[in-house]
């Protein structure tokens, strides 16, 4: 019997090493090409989609959902460059949703944040929020203070001047308005509009105003007369008849020795009488406001907020409201 030789295959050590090396390399390549990009970019891509979704809600006019979405992005996408943009969009969405106090807080937060990309726009937009809250004195003071700030974007400073001019025009302060209009730079796109407004201030004083003092005085002498003066004969007649009736009834009550009834009727008449004077004065003020508004309506009374908010269209949404 011949002896059998067992076949022993001995793998060379070098080959073992090579396969291990290849395996590690493959894993490494896999990590670099597949996992790492998905970890780094995948997170950002989601955030972009989330922001886009928020903007879509905004464009469709669903501001409440847009606000919710923007808040979600701010919470989840920490450190992403989009965050600052979304913080600004959130503040703007608050305005459209008529949540003015929240808008004010959000703009203040942006203004106070250091190196925020939307710092200057937020500063201007805050004036818009204050004006919408009917805080006219605060809006004027705020904008006046803002003019001392050195804006990187000169358009924003011109916008502040323009807005201040409008606020002064509407309240009848022509001198102050003219000063602000003259401050607007020639190169500014607001310059043409500012020139038109300046020339319009000349005709402003000749508008058909009604004096609130005369109106109130007339109604104090004859109830309803002030309303006739303001051009509201029906209101005047109502005031005259009601005051006449109550006054007549009061006199009659005292004439018939019914002091108790007389006191009650007299007290009610006093209310009607004072209310009648207030009504005449108020009507004159409202008439003057209307005359002023009608006069200025013919002029370009809109700031290009779209440009202010949407700086060069980079936010990807468009706005259409009046400042």
């Amino acid at each position, binding site marked *: 019997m011949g002896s059998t030789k067992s076949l022993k295959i001995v793998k060379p050590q070098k080959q073992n090493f090579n396969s291990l090396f290849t395996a590690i390399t493959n894993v490494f390549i896999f990590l670099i090409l597949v996992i790492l990009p998905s970890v780094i970019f995948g997170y950002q891509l989601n955030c972009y989609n989330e922001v886009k979704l928020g903007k879509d809600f905004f464009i469709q006019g669903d501001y409440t959902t847009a606000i919710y979405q923007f808040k979600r992005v701010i919470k989840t996408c920490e450190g992403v460059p989009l965050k600052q943009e979304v913080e600004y969009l959130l503040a703007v969405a608050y305005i459209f949703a008529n949540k003015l106090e929240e808008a004010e807080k959000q703009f203040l937060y942006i203004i106070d944040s250091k190196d925020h990309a939307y710092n200057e726009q937020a500063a201007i937009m805050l004036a818009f929020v204050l004006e919408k*809250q*009917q*805080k*006219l*004195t*605060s809006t004027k003071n705020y904008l006046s203070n803002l003019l001392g700030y050195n804006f990187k974007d000169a358009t924003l400073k011109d916008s502040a001047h323009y807005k201040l001019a409008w606020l002064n025009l509407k309240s009848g302060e022509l001198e102050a308005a003219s000063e602000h209009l003259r401050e607007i730079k020639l190169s500014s796109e607001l310059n043409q509009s500012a020139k038109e407004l300046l020339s319009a201030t000349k005709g402003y004083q000749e508008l058909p105003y009604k004096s*609130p003092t005369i109106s109130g005085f007339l109604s104090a002498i004859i109830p309803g007369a002030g*309303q006739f003066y303001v051009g*509201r*004969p*029906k*209101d005047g007649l*109502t*005031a005259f008849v009601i005051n006449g009736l109550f006054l007549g009834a009061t006199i009659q009550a005292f004439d018939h*020795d*019914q*002091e*108790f009834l007389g*006191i009650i009727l007299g007290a009610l008449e006093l*209310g*009607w009488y*004072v*209310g*009648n004077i*207030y*009504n005449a004065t*108020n*009507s004159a*003020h*409202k*008439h003057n*406001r*209307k005359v002023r508004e009608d006069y200025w309506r013919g002029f370009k009374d809109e700031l290009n907020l779209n440009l202010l908010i949407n700086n060069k269209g980079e936010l990807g949404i468009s706005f259409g409201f009046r400042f």
Partner: protein
Amino acid sequence: MLDFERSTDVVFIHTLLIGVNTLEKNILRILCVFIAFFLCWHNAHGENYISEKIISFYQEYLSPLDTSECPSFPRCSEYAKAAIRKHGLIKGWILIVDRLFHEGSEEQKVSEIIIVDGKPKLYDPVENNDFWWFNKK
């Protein structure tokens, strides 16, 4: 216990009693007590509490009986509440009287028209009638 007889309001009303007959005098005495009670309750529940309660009573029980509809928004009773809340009882009352006078069609010339529940209404909040003397800071 409050001594109503010493209350300045009561003294003021007593001065008006000269020449008033006994029956009316008694009615006025009751009225004085009622006013004093009203003032105490008013102070105890904070400013304008009673006025608002009276307006709420009107809104709940009397307004439904009145078929005519207020042409303005907010409606007159809401306006009254807002005016009293903002300016107190006396100035608020003057604003309410002013609103009652200018509720007619002539207001259309100076106030905005808005659609509320599908109906056109004059937008006339308190701010529309005190803008020339009351400014929010």
